């Protein structure tokens, strides 16, 4: 297809797939369904509950490198215990260390605060494809009692796809944009994501679930220019430390700068652009 700007796209239509008209429903790529796994201790605790759901008052969901680095340094201030994970298929290039403990690993773990077990944090570094996101979100809402919780979703996105009246060369990156569900009464600390921009993939699926199920949720998206994780992009989230639901569960981190540098160094190994 030739577009308005003259570039040639490999598809005949953005909306529909030409192959799909031939009803080849069997020719699907094989994917494993996402799996949720709780730790031994958690499973024992869940046995005692009636609905098998983990109680929760504050839930922070970090998706992607920047959001994860921010959560690691600024949000998970107190002692947190790893209580579970949601697993999806790994790609060929995805890294994992033996201990699965490095911030560069493609993991997705759920953490629980020691001092206040109703605070849960989920750090997802794994790529969850858009077609798996429904099952993923379903697993989350089926296993964690989020109906009364305050939920914050953090993620980052490229400015490449961001549309605005301001030319992209004049955008002051990185910047934050937010969306919230109807039940989330507080106003987000930054501007609302402007039309016609929208979010896709796992963050969008989670927010759809939270909106439809009438949960109190807000999403903060950092629009960034760098392909690799950068200190500024991580710090773009700083303003949300002062608002619901993050403000109630954190305190200032004295070692933040050092931790930031450490994480950057770890990731710099992958940045081979100027080697």
């Amino acid at each position, binding site marked *: 297809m030739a577009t*308005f700007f003259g570039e040639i796209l490999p598809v005949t239509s953005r909306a529909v797939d030409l192959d799909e008209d031939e009803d080849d429903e069997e020719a699907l790529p094989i994917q494993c369904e996402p799996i949720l796994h709780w730790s031994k201790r958690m499973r024992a605790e869940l046995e005692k509950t009636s609905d098998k759901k983990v109680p929760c008052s504050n839930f922070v969901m970090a998706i992607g490198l920047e959001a994860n680095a921010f959560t690691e340094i600024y949000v998970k201030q107190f002692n947190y215990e790893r209580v579970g994970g949601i697993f999806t298929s790994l790609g060929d290039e995805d890294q994992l260390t033996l201990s699965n403990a490095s911030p560069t690993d493609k993991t997705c773990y759920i953490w629980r605060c020691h001092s206040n077990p109703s605070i849960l944090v989920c750090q997802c570094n794994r790529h969850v494809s858009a077609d798996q996101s429904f*099952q993923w979100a379903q697993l989350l809402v089926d296993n964690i009692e989020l109906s009364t919780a305050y939920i914050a979703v953090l993620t980052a996105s490229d400015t490449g796809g961001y549309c605005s009246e301001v*030319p992209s060369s004049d955008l002051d990156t990185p910047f934050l944009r*937010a*969306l919230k569900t109807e039940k989330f009464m507080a106003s987000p600390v930054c501007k609302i994501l402007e039309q*016609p921009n929208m979010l896709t993939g796992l963050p969008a699926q989670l927010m759809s679930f939270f909106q439809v199920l009438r949960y109190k949720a807000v999403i903060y998206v950092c629009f960034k220019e760098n392909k690799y994780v950068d200190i500024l992009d991580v710090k773009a989230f700083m303003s949300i430390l002062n608002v619901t639901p993050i403000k109630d569960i954190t305190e200032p981190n004295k070692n933040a700068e050092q931790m930031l540098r450490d994480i950057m160094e770890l990731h710099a190994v992958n940045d081979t652009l100027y080697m």
Partner: protein
Amino acid sequence: MYISTSNRKHAWQDYTLIVPTVSVGNVGQLAADLVISTLWMERVGFILHPSLLPCVGNNPFAHEDATSCKMTTCCEVYESTSTQVVVIQQRAPFVKGRRKEYAQWLSAWIKEHNFYQVAILTSTFAQERLDHQLVGSPFRILKSPAMEARSGEFFKTKMDLQDLESRVSFPAPSRTQQEPNLTNPESKLLYMPGSGIAKMLFEDCQSLPVLVLMMFVSEGDNAGDGLAIADQLNQWLNLITIKKEANKELQSHHVATGIMKWKIPMSWKLVFGSKFDQKLYQ
């Protein structure tokens, strides 16, 4: 699954349901956007289904200067009580290979709600037009038996809409192979490539009064096609009254006369991305 935003029970037996299917140029969605924004329709429910790819954004029908957040999801149901219309707006394509599942679910949902009639808006590839289809109106219709009985000659005489020509098979057989089949209605096929789930829905809902309104289009800036199909829909359902321009002189200056009657939603801006720096070309 369908989730209503309120606990009110829907009584839609006198309502017309408009279902745009995701199809080439997204013409159906564009027309639905116009209907929703012009009639100030109210969102009454969400559709959450594993076949739909996710997307969220702020309210696409908000005022330009609005700063509040009303999050919109990938598939929503809108209702207008004054005009008795329900629209299903789907804003994302399907997960590959899962269209059928959704089409089946949707036709069951439609049957369950007992609508007065159903309009499926869709489009099909313009490059697939046959020689004899090339001239004349780009619109075609399909009617279920119940719609046929109800409408009579209305679409043909009042709206000048033609039924979609069925084909013998695809790829096209030779003339000699065709001859014996031409008279046999059993061998005729509905050929509407690029129309998404329109055909599946139409075939599943044969027991209801269903009209498929389709248009031959190509991908591009399809806003004009969206307006055109919305106009056709309006001729049938009388959703809005078209304002006639009083000043004849003014009319000749506006190429797109009459466009003003539809309220174009805010989400239609910046179709081709951000504005660029004008200095680039100085």
